[in-house]
């Protein structure tokens, strides 16, 4: 690709404007997509209501106005159609960014993702690249009706050929979406919708971390806590609370769910001897199961307590009045920390 990459050209669109600004995650994603659209004419944004409306969360706000209807496409209402045509566009040389309106609506497109998107590079022995990004606002906590609060990341993590990432804050959101667009592999990009309107200081001239790397957000020697997406904020708050009781949590934001970057987690567990995993998703056969399975193997002699998981239950997502109980919160994380320490 001739276009400069996000790392080579870290200055945001509208240079001359102050590079540091306070933005929500929605705004950061919007800026990131805008930068991607500006940087490479092959980038197209597509999905239901992404045009005039700017998406139901306004992540694509104003993009169709500025880039036109052939770069920002309001598609017919069918997710297999969205993914399937995005794959065709990718074969033709485009870099489509698809929006799935809510987590629970990715399943009609699941076949195209599993059977084509994930496998075409392997099938063609690398002759065909399918640099499609599938953006999925995920997780609960917004008081929505059914199918609007799910955490389907494990389905994708289990699918060889896909890359799966989750951002947890506006700064990462800004960089990660651009890096995902630049990835020559398909990326399933999870956005924690209940964190959409939280703010952070974004320096658009900074050098971003690599996309497929986890990151220690807070250091601590008592217990390692690994999490991603919406749970990161919860776990950081738990760490603050624990510190008041003299318990120091080391918090790792996983960021990439497949491939996992467990190096920082393993290093940490070798020091703390204890690991708590936090995720909104049901636990059964999930990403947290995978991490527990690997860490018990890699850190067998270091573990002083079993790896514990704090997750959504193995039930359908409940009616929203019950989501506070369903979703792991600060207290449940601390409870697990206590149980870990009690071993």
């Amino acid at each position: 690709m001739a276009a400069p990459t996000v790392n080579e050209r870290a200055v945001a669109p509208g240079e001359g404007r102050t590079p540091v600004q306070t933005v929500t995650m929605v705004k950061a994603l919007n800026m990131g997509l805008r930068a991607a659209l500006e940087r490479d004419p092959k980038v197209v944004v597509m999905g239901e209501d992404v045009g005039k409306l700017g998406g139901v969360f306004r992540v694509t706000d104003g993009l169709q106005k500025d880039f036109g209807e052939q770069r920002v496409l309001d598609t017919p209402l069918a997710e297999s159609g969205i993914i399937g045509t995005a794959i065709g566009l990718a074969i033709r040389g485009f870099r489509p960014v698809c929006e799935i309106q809510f987590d629970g609506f990715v399943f009609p497109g699941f076949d195209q993702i599993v059977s084509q998107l994930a496998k075409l590079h392997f099938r063609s022995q690398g002759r065909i690249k399918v640099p499609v990004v599938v953006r999925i606002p995920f997780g609960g906590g917004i008081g929505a009706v059914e199918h609007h609060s799910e955490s389907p990341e494990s389905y994708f993590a289990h699918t060889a050929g896909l890359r799966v990432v989750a951002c947890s804050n506006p700064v990462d959101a800004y960089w990660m979406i651009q890096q995902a667009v630049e990835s020559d592999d398909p990326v399933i990009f999870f956005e924690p919708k209940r964190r959409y309107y939280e703010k952070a200081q974004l320096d658009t001239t900074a050098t971003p971390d690599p996309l497929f790397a986890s990151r220690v957000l807070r250091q601590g020697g008592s217990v390692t806590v690994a999490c991603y997406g919406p749970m990161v904020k919860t776990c950081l708050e738990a760490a603050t609370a624990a510190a008041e009781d003299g318990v120091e949590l080391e918090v790792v934001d996983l960021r990439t769910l497949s491939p996992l970057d467990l190096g920082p987690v393993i290093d940490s567990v070798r020091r703390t001897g204890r690991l708590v995993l936090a995720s909104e998703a049901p636990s059964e056969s999930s990403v947290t199961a995978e991490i527990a399975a690997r860490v018990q193997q890699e850190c067998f002699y270091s573990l002083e307590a079993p790896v514990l998981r704090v997750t959504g239950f193995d039930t359908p997502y409940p009616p929203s009045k019950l989501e506070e109980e369903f979703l792991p919160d600060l207290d449940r994380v601390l409870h697990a920390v206590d149980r870990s320490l009690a071993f």
Partner: protein
Amino acid sequence: MIAGLRATTEGGADLVQLLTPEGERVHHPDFDIEVTPEELRGLYRDMVLIRRADREGNALQRQGQLGIWVPLLGQEAAQIGAGRAMKPHDMAFPSYREHGVAWCRGIDPTEILGIFRGTDHGSWDPLAARFHLYTIVIGNQCLNATGYAMGQRFQGKVGDDDGEATICFFGDGATSQGDVHEAMVWASVYDAPVVFYCQNNQWAISEPIERQTRVPLYQRASGYGFPGIRVDGNDVLACLAVSRWALDECRHGNGPVLIEAFTYRMDAHTTSDDPTRYRLSDELEAWKLKDPIERVRVHLVKQQWADQEFFDSVQADADELAARLRDFCVNMPTPGPERIFSEVYAQESPQVRAQRDEFLDYMAGFADAHAGGEH
């Protein structure tokens, strides 16, 4: 090429209409019906009451009593016409906007509130009411409805006036989904007694009908070999007549049938939506002139089939319904956390039980700790 033909064209000859926006009764060679003054007053009352319930839903959302509301405003005729065409043993599979059909199935609007308040996913008994739960994943219910209708046929419930039929509701946007296509394929090859009832309200959230099709949607049916009819979806008489005919075709074994009820979503997609971002008020104004209730009112008056007393009593009923809804809503209990774990399976799962027990223990311990003042 055909690309120039607009899917939104309100077909003259295509469109079945029995009552004009001006309240004039017109006749149709194929789909005429006679209605008694009482029947028409009933339809009027249905529409006024469900609109009132709908507006109350909106208000309750604005006041924080509901998380979201999905308005039917403008689609009263399409829904009441279809709902009143059903016989008791017919079955309906709604999408998520069919409060008017629910009403006709005897489901009190209070039973819908939980969905939008977040306490349940609908509290009616779908088998007893012969009205399935709301389906939110676009298009899914069309296949479920077709399977149900196949079952009606397999059980020999199809073939004469006493036959059963199924009606399935979906939107213009839904027509793009693979599931809706597969439903039409299945229904046609199994001669399933199912009426596909598409409320073309011109919009799928922010996307106009042109994003889903080049040609009028009712024409899809010809590709599958069954009849497709476009009806004025703001004309309750026409909707009643066409639906009754279609259901009768199905119960006699001549299904399936596709109906496109040509109507308009007068409000936002949901209370979370902001239609000013994507559509002009002109369009809304034009459709206001085609209001489904007003034309019936005019006709009732012109025919002297209803007097002011009647209209006042309907209004009073509507206000009472609204008050009852509000009252019910603000007093709705929130289920306890055990609901999270209940009815996940018909046969209890040891894993879910263990998670429930552990969680309830944890909650109890937590309450104790709080009581004791500790963290």
